[in-house]
């Protein structure tokens, strides 16, 4: 699939900001089943220094030390994807799978999560257990934006019964670890046939299955990632893989505006 992505993020401030620093994880990698054909990022800094973080994610650093009232980030890119049935191969893996058994404040185990995961234990194969878990999470947490926030924990999301893809991913990750699978959070983009405009990028989870490696699970949609998915960054939870993490000095209150379009590229028509 040829996917075209246009992702614009605008931070507007009520007062002048003296200094902004942001860590951007807005760069997909090329690997098996995902080839980045073109990728540019427009930011209020000439050339963004880039590095790989400890999780292997491509990361850029944006710093602005002149007074400003807004920060505009514009990502335009084209990615070619193939159906891999959720299997992730060829991604830089600096950390061994066992590391991803570690829990974080957002993915702390609880009795409720343990209870939620329990029926999955009955399944015969590891892969079936994870698929069962995905549908359990999918059915248990209703997709409803605005009910949770970036700091909501898996346990809170479960108790609430509603949330967004980030919460589905956190609940799935926590439960998968309870079932003995290393699991991690993934951020990226999703193409859907119906809606054209999104107000946020997507997130899902990956779990490590012996013999198969990392496999993706999108509990928000109840499916494994397909060729409609563009994978960007991963980590123990949202905090590690967030597309933008920043700090500013001054500025008063902030208004965030996100415009995201993921389209299937039109076939090139010869002139």
């Amino acid at each position, binding site marked *: 699939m040829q996917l075209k992505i246009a992702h614009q993020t605008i931070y507007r401030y009520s007062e002048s900001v003296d*200094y902004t*620093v942001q*860590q951007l994880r807005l760069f997909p990698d090329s690997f098996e089943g995902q080839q980045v054909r073109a990728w540019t990022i427009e930011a209020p*800094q000439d050339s963004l*220094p880039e*590095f*790989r*973080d*400890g*999780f*292997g994610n491509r*990361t850029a*650093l944006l*710093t602005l*030390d002149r007074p400003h009232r807004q920060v505009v980030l514009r990502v335009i890119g084209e990615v070619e994807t193939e159906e891999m049935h959720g299997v992730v191969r060829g991604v830089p893996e*600096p*950390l*061994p799978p*066992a*590391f991803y*058994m*570690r829990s974080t404040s957002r993915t702390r185990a609880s009795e409720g999560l343990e209870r939620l995961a329990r029926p999955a234990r009955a399944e015969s194969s590891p892969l079936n257990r994870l698929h069962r878990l995905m549908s359990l999470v999918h059915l248990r947490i209703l997709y409803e934006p605005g009910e949770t926030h970036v700091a909501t924990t898996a346990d809170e999301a479960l108790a609430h019964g509603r949330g967004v893809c980030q919460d589905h991913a956190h609940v799935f990750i926590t439960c998968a670890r309870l079932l003995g699978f290393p699991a991690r959070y993934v951020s990226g983009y999703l193409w859907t046939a119906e809606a054209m405009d999104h107000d946020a990028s997507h997130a899902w989870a990956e779990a490590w299955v012996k013999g198969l490696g990392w496999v993706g699970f999108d509990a928000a949609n109840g499916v494994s990632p397909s060729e409609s998915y563009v994978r960007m960054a991963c980590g*123990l939870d949202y905090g*590690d893989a967030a597309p933008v*993490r*920043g*700090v500013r000095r001054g500025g008063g209150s902030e208004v965030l505006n996100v415009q995201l379009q993921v389209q299937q590229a039109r076939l090139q028509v010869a002139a």
Partner: protein
Amino acid sequence: MAERIFNEMTGYDSRTRPVYERLQQWLGEIPPDLLQLRRDEAETLFRRIGITFAVYGEGGDPERLIPFDVIPRLLEAQEWERISQGLEQRVKALNAFLHDLYHEQEILRSGMIPEELILHNPAYEPEMQGLDLPRQVYTHISGIDLVRIGPDDCYVLEDNVRTPSGVSYMLENREVTMRLFPELFSRYSVEPVDHYCEELLSTLQSVAPRECPGDPTVAVLTPGIHNSAYYEHSFLADQMGVELVEGMDLFVRDRAVYMRTTQGPKRVDVLYRRVDDAFLDPLVFNPASMLGVPGLMAAYRLGTITLANAVGTGIADDKAVYTYVPEMVRFYLGEEPKLKNVPTWQCAREDDCRYVLEHLEELVVKEVRGSGGYGMLVGPKSTSDERERYAARIRANPGEFVAQPTLALSTCPTLVEEGVAPRHVDLRPFILMGESVQIIPGGLTRVALREGSLVVNSSQGGGTKDTWVLKS
């Protein structure tokens, strides 16, 4: 372990050891009240210099003076040589371990250390994975706590490779001793320590980033005036002639770290940071931290700044990892360890835990993540009530505790209310690692001032002594 206590002046049998002969003679000559007078003078000096440390949560004046014992501790050249070789070997192994953990993880693949002990340990820092450091140095400054139980019997009690403190006391103690007892000083030929800050500066300069243009700019990063070791931070910055900065003095621009100066932003190449990992960068660690510099870790990964010590070194001095240090020496250096570990029971292991619970009366039990002597149980000095309560804590969270036998720490002559009497001591030598390994002769001797007490931590009523390594 020997039950008898080794007295560093008189050995086991009241026969003065040769190294202490002149000191003992001097103690016999000097009128007792003059010794007391000198101690009062020393206290005045320390107060005037302002060497205090802060103790919180106990009420009273938080700015306290660490008691200074005026009688120096003596180490013979050969004694020190043995110790110093062991120290060099140990920090090299610890450093190699850190480099391996944050790269290939051979030691985990080999199965020598259980994978989960490292990977699930909060002290293991994923943000360090795959980062190449100048000269592959992680532990630029280490403090290794040693105890002695016999003439040739030294044990490592604890490794400190995060931000070990105490070196300013080592230096000030020497200043004060030389000032108060020039006549004693002249009876011995003592290895100097006052070049420490010079060595520290050149160590730090030697690990500047590869791309650093010109002479590297070094700065000391402190959490600020309310930190218990603030005096030391300002002392070291002052002695090295570099800026003492707080997080708000630094900012990241483009690829590098700058400090705000009256002449505009000035680039910093090496940061001797005395701020804990968790507070270094709100973009990566504790988002509420006001002590750090947002973007610092990005600059670190971009290779434009050196942090000393490196981030994530805490995994090497974790009390649960400690047990494996002798294995590390063999694994990385192919040598037999020259310094011994104290046998340690890991309560995380079922058998060990059972043993510990059955022998609480004989053991010292510590929290894996505790420090400063807080939250430990000294079995032989505890009441059955205390042991009961502690046992309950161990049962609830066995992974949080390790236990060691109660060591008969050596004693040194110490001036107390009743006169000169033996008191238990330990030793924290400081090891610098940059282009080469530098060990300052001696270190900080800590002394338990209460009779019979084995707890030397300053937060628990311990004092310090000047430590003299004699020239051969």
